[in-house]
């Protein structure tokens, strides 16, 4: 397996650790795991995540060392007196953590949030860009 597949690994251990750290019951920090698509081409990686109901100001993206954390709080226009009768989305929070691999340039991540879909572009570092290697025949 190539190293780039590191980005596909979900750090569930980190997530569980964070849950117990903030709250002994471990439930208030619970979050839904947003579904994602990860596509790699020669220049970098594109990540798309479904974050319905997360406005721009409630989205937090963090890159720390080689860890990328996506966190979002759902904000919905719920009327005050509403009583839920049927619920499929039971938690108003999304969270997912990925491990980046070292040839990715974490300092140049660009992000775009539109209609509840987050698009992240993580380019590869200059030195990791593909180049053709000439074979010299002597």
């Amino acid at each position, binding site marked *: 397996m190539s190293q*780039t*597949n590191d*980005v*596909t690994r*979900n750090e*569930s251990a980190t997530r569980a650790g964070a849950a117990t750290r903030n709250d002994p019951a471990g439930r208030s920090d*619970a979050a*839904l*795991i*947003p*579904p*994602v*698509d*990860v*596509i*790699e*081409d*020669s220049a970098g990686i594109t990540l*798309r995540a*479904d*974050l*319905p*109901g*997360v*406005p721009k100001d409630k989205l937090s993206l963090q890159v720390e060392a080689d860890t990328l954390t996506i966190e979002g709080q759902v*904000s*919905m*226009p*719920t*009327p005050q*007196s*509403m*009583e*839920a*009768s*049927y*619920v*499929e*989305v*039971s938690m108003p929070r999304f969270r997912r953590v990925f491990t980046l691999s070292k040839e990715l340039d974490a300092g140049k991540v660009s992000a775009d949030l*539109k*209609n*509840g*879909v987050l698009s992240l572009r993580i380019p590869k570092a200059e030195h990791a860009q593909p180049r053709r290697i000439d074979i010299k025949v002597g």
Partner: protein
Amino acid sequence: MYQSLFPRDAFAELDRLQREMREAFDLSPNIRGLGRGGFPALNVGGTPQSVEIFAFAPGLDPATVEIELDRGVLSIAGERPSGLPAADDGKAAVHINERFAGRFRRVLSLPDDIDPDGVTADYRDGILHISARRRESALPRRITVQ
């Protein structure tokens, strides 16, 4: 089989297991099935004045979403384009493919006291919010003793 909406979530998995158990033992399920796990995910709530439906449908063009109300049955249909490269494109590799793509339709029946002319819908941040007003005659009111 449908794709789990929020994959690898332990609670969702437990929920799915529970649902499958229930479906296996339920001798008289709803005619439209239980429907959980479809796209878009739905939350439904009620107030004394209205029924509020929230469809978690990110990445749609609101102009292409069809919402129909026919004899008290509300259907939400549309298509979500796939952002993945074509299969014959050898240059890109897909490492994770979890997001829903393709046509969808979800149907739910509304209570009898809904006013068909009082249904509004708006789309914001990927949530489709449909608000259906209850009929004036069905609203709770205080009756004064003469």
